[in-house]
């Protein structure tokens, strides 16, 4: 539980600090006329979807942190046997990094208003992501073939659970990716998809980070 406690403490600290920051020296009962055309104080200069994504990432962080805590606690049991990690995971990691790179590139292209590059970048990122997911399935396959079943071996069970949840998050991202790509293919102007591309990029980087952490945890504990 220490892991999640630390992670959540960090998130909560940010939240509390963020909320406390504008409140400390304010005497709200002192009447004040708003200055011309002001915006509500404390609002982030970001479109709401971005803030929404940020909040969602905090939720996902809590989820994965708790899983990692559970993994560590379960490891302490006597029957724990270390998992032989399939080699293909290295390859998958590489592929996922590529998809992140492709996303980043797409984002840059979107900023520069190059719709063709955006199209190529999105498709490349999608292809890499699908390859990653296929690679993960392949890793499952290998484990299964090697006689590690969900049922018998706790380390394998965790492996399936962690990769499945991570994969599901990616699939969720693929939904947004799909809608964006479809719009790009239909030929909308760059400005209409720039935000979606940015969101996808942030999300992909986040999931890459999560995967790297998960992979590190698995590597750290494998035989």
């Amino acid at each position, binding site marked *: 539980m220490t892991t999640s406690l630390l992670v959540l403490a960090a998130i909560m600290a940010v939240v509390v600090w963020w909320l406390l920051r504008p409140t400390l020296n304010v005497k709200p*009962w002192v009447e004040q006329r708003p200055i011309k055309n002001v915006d509500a104080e404390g609002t982030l200069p970001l479109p709401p979807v971005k803030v929404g994504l940020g909040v969602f990432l905090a939720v996902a962080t809590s989820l994965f942190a708790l899983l990692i805590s559970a993994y560590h606690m379960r490891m302490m049991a006597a029957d724990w046997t270390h998992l032989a990690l399939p080699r293909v995971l290295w390859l998958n990691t590489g592929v996922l990094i590529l998809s992140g790179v492709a996303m980043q590139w797409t984002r840059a292209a979107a900023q520069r208003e190059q719709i063709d590059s955006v199209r190529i970048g999105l498709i490349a990122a999608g292809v890499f992501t699908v390859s990653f997911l296929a690679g993960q399935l392949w890793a499952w396959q290998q484990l299964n073939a090697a006689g590690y079943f969900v049922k018998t071996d706790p380390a394998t069970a965790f492996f399936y659970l962690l990769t499945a949840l991570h994969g599901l998050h990616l699939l969720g991202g693929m939904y947004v990716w799909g809608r964006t790509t479809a719009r790009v293919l239909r030929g909308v102007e760059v400005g209409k998809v720039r935000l979606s591309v940015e969101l996808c990029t942030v999300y992909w980087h986040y999931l890459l980070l999560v995967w790297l952490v998960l992979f590190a945890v698995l590597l750290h504990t494998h035989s």
Partner: protein
Amino acid sequence: MSSVAFDESPHVPPAEVPEVELYHPKTFIGRYIWSQDAKVIAVQYAITAISVGVVALVLSGLMRLQLGFPHTFSFITPANYLQFVTMHGMIMVIYLLTALFLGGFGNYLIPLMVGARDMVFPYVNMVSYWVYLFAVLLLMASFFVPGGPTGAGWTLYPPQAILGGTPGANWGIILMLVSLAFFIIGFTMGGLNYVVTVLQARTRGMTMMRLPLTVWGILMATILALLAFPALFVSAIMMILDQALGTSFFMPALVSKGQHLAYNGGSPILFQHLFWFFGHPEVYIVALPAFGIVSDLISVNARRNIFGYRMMVWAILAIGGLSFMVWAHHMYVSGMNPYFGFFFATTTLVIAIPTALKVYNWVLTLWRGDIHLTVPMLFAIGFVFTFINGGLTGLFLGNVPVDIPLSGTMFVVAHFHMVMAVSPILVVFGAIYHWYPKVTGRMLNDTLGKFHFWVTFLGTYAIYYPMHYLGFLGVPRRYFAMGNTVFIPPSAQSLNVAITIAALIVGAIQVVFLYNLIWSYFKGKPSGPNPWRATTLEWQTPHTPPKHGNFGPTLPVVYRWAYDYSVPGAAEDFIPQDQPPGRKAPGLEEAPDASELGPQKPGALVT
């Protein structure tokens, strides 16, 4: 002296982005069923939550019948009893209170109170409700599957939750877990809305420190829920795998009814950590919105600013932060490492300090006020009284050696009913009396309301105060029947009978409330826009009930905090938040004209 700082970023509050405004429902279905209007979604949430709440209320009646008159009703078997307890607890905490406070009040009040046209993601908000409804239907379906709903207790502890000796260990538990998972998904969708709306969609001049405490309470509760629900989500998935695929996340090697099962090495304590990591914040998830709402009810009806607003905000933040550090106070006797006791006892008692501050400030708001004992105010004062009682018994349980004899007894049941089933429920009622006029344009009947208050307040106190003493005596919770013991005097059973009678009366009287809700909808006294003479924005809407888009062509501009009651020198005893400063107000030269405020988005809403 520093004052509210405004930065001049050009960002336009998103409630004014065109997409939202272009949304005009055309049909009845579009307006009331597939609605993306937060106010309609709020009502949908509230009706659904109250409906399942009534199911849970009936279950509590059945439980009380069994405890008061054991061995009289052949349709209540030990298996049923556990199913009733479990479904009652789970429905009340999650599907009623969490959904009602956040999905119901949150949806209705956040946009109105921060001065937004709607939630920032109306579509996601709508989906959130439908996912919630689906979760509720799944849960209700478990009453009709073979074996019935799960009887594992609302804490769903494995191993018993998924083994044969517990009712509903096959279908019931799976439906429960899947339903919870959907609830969490649906809630996360809604929660994103609540947080982002408060952060990003506040109208001009609505600084964080000008937010009414209701919004603060709901905001913090939502943040807690967003971060805590994943723990329940993870444990639900892991338990489903244990049950359905035979993994051993939580299941150690064990022999059930003489059969060796194929589990090995799992840790039941791990589940408890995960569950309470969610479960403790959960109790504040239902408490914080109540704290916020009651602050506003008290302030309005005492015609006095809430005392120590800043401390109230900080207390909410402190409670939120601390509530992630106390979870193991539910596990003092679980067999976890006993040294944790020192840490968790300390954090648990420390959390009482910010809570105490809130209590003091409620009472200090009454002090030197001008108290109007309206129905919402009665409920609010009832809340303060029962919350003090229930919170103080929490201190018994938090102090680890005191918890040892009391844990697992009716004392715990009495504690959490007083603090969760009575006090926030009183707030729910008070809040409904308070905002019903805004939702419907009519007042609830006052006489029926007072009657409802007195029976509910006195009745619930009569149920739960004596129940603590059954706990001292040693009567365990989740017991179908006490049976023969050496030391529990027969008089304890007469106490149980009295409690049952009180519970049945209180339960039955809720019909009066339901009747009032329906009758007043058609026949209630028209309320006008601001019957309580309150300052917050929801009372300043051009229409009552507010139309889609809430505020007519222009969004209100906020000039002051939410608590300008009885300001010296002011003509009225309240000054709405959007009332420009008076020309003569000291320290301010002159009030700006609306036209001076720069271009306002028209955002006209033709519905």
